Structure formats: structure tokens, C-alpha cells
């Protein structure tokens, strides 16, 4: 059982993601996490400002429960199923990140420079987190789905819109990592 505490290899985790999608299909639901953002907006009262949020959010209640589960899963995995798990990165990646100022590369699960407890006391980091979130929320709704809805669910169903969206995801990601990030860090 020791393997459970080690990082899980991609060839185990990949099929387990498909198993998640299948479990939901078997319950008559479609896998897609970003819809929850719209649901939360509706619950928070956004339906008063525009019709995009006028829908019966109770029909998405199940998805909020999946989201709640993801939070619990993160807690369980980090507290009980890991012994200080640190991704074994390519040494070149670590070198690149050190030169960008990410000293925690190779030493922690998430960069302390962005997700450490003191990180948000820096206005710059606070702004980056907020803007990044805005891009994720705006972009996923504009594209009609995120990685789970398009790149896993939609592509599994061989849908052209999901292929276009996934090409977009990677185009945006590459522009951010190779051109924008070197300017902001």
C-alpha cells in the first residue's frame, strides 16, 4: 500500500480521470467543473443583473457536490495520502524557474512565491492571482467549458468545438508561459 503515498504515475491517473467521467455519465450527468462558477454566481444573486444567470440552479446541485468533493479530496490527499509530496521536475524546468525568481521550484508542491501564506501580502502577487482567476472564469464560460468539459469530455466524444477550444487552451498557455510570464516575473 506504500504506492498510495508516492506520486501517482500518469498511466494510472489518466484512466482514473476517465473513470470519474464515466461515473458521472452513468448517473446521467456530464463531467465539467467550470459550470459551477456560473451556478455560484446565480446563487450569489447574479440572476438579478442578467439573464445568463437565470436558470434553476438546483438542476446543477449535483455538480456543486462534485466540487465540494474535490475540496475534500484535496484535503485528504495532502494531509493523509502524502508525505510532503514534491513533483520531480525536469532539472531544466527548475533552472528556468530559479532564474524567474521561483526559488521554491523543486522544493514544494505549489510555488511559495504565489501560494505561500505570506504571498498575498504582496500587491503584485494579489493582482496576478485575481487577474489569473478573471481570465479562467471569463475564458471558460466564453469557450463553454474548461479542461474537464472540453479536453476530456468533449474530445472523448470527438467533438470539433472541443478540439478548437483545446487548441485555444494550449495557444493561450504557450503565449502566457513563453512571452508574458518572462515580462511579469
Amino acid at each position, binding site marked *: 500500500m506504500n504506492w498510495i503515498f508516492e506520486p*501517482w504515475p500518469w498511466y*494510472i491517473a489518466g484512466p482514473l480521470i476517465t473513470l*470519474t467521467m464515466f461515473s458521472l455519465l452513468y448517473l446521467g450527468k456530464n463531467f465539467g467543473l*467550470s459550470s459551477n462558477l456560473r451556478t455560484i454566481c446565480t446563487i450569489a444573486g447574479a440572476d438579478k443583473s442578467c439573464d445568463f444567470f437565470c436558470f434553476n440552479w438546483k438542476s446543477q446541485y449535483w455538480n456543486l*457536490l462534485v466540487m465540494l468533493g474535490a475540496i475534500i479530496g484535496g484535503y485528504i*490527499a495532502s494531509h493523509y495520502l502524502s508525505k510532503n509530496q514534491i513533483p520531480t521536475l525536469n532539472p531544466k524546468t527548475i533552472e528556468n524557474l530559479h532564474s524567474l525568481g521561483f526559488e521554491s521550484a523543486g522544493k514544494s508542491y505549489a510555488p511559495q512565491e504565489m501560494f505561500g501564506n505570506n504571498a498575498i501580502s504582496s500587491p503584485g502577487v494579489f493582482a496576478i492571482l485575481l487577474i489569473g482567476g478573471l481570465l479562467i472564469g471569463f475564458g471558460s*464560460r466564453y469557450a463553454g467549458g474548461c479542461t474537464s468539459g472540453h479536453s476530456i469530455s468533449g474530445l472523448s466524444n470527438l467533438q470539433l468545438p472541443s478540439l478548437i477550444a483545446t487548441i485555444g487552451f494550449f495557444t493561450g498557455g504557450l503565449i502566457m508561459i513563453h512571452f508574458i510570464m518572462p515580462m511579469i516575473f
Partner: protein
Amino acid sequence: MKSLIYVIIGTFFGIVMYKSEAASWFRIYEMFKFQSFHMFGLMGTALFTGIFLVNYIKRKHSKDVFGNTIKLTPKDKGVKRYLIGGIIFGSGWALIGACPGPMFVLAGAGYIPILIVILGALLGTWVYGLIRHKLPH
């Protein structure tokens, strides 16, 4: 009790995301630098098994637990919204190193600053709802 199954599926998903390091900012950065096969293998195997499974479900007209034929809701046709929206989403995904699933996984793992990201994502969704009629789709 029926609610519990969704929480269990989500918990399972969250554990897989954390343990596979798909929720690690570093892994996303490494992927976009093409310096590791890890994330490509992860998404590749998910996709490979997913295509096989969905094809099987459609061919056999498999039924769900309630006895209804399993349906995957098709996405509307179009190019612009998927490409532009996709590029915007992708840039956020790369900057934050987490998409809407792992975002909540990280919140559970105790990274407080991710709450700012979630707040931003909610605002972004709301802004999209406000101005979507003015956007090309």
C-alpha cells in the same frame, strides 16, 4: 444518500488530481515548456480511454443507472467563441497553474491564496454573463 455519491466522486477526482500532480503549478509550467511527458501522458491516457469508452457507450446505446440512454450533450457549432475563449482560458490556466477542478483541490489542500483566484474566476464568469451579447460567438 443520493447526494453522497456525487461528493464521493468529487473526492475521488480531487485525490487523483492532487496525487497525479495535475494540481501542481510546477507541472503545468513544465508542460507548457515541453520539458516533461508527465502531463501529456496524463491527458493522453485519459483521452485514449475516454474515446474508447464513449465510442462503446454510443455503439451499445448503454443505459445509465436510471435506465435512460447515456447522452453526451453536444456543444453548439462555432469557431470564434471556442478559439478566443480558449485562448483567454489557457492564458489564465498557465498563469495560475490550475483549472477550475484543481483550483478547488488546492483550496482543500490549504493554500489560502487560491481563494483570490476563485474570487477572480467568479467575477470573470459574471463579467462574461454581462457582456456576452457584445462578444463574437
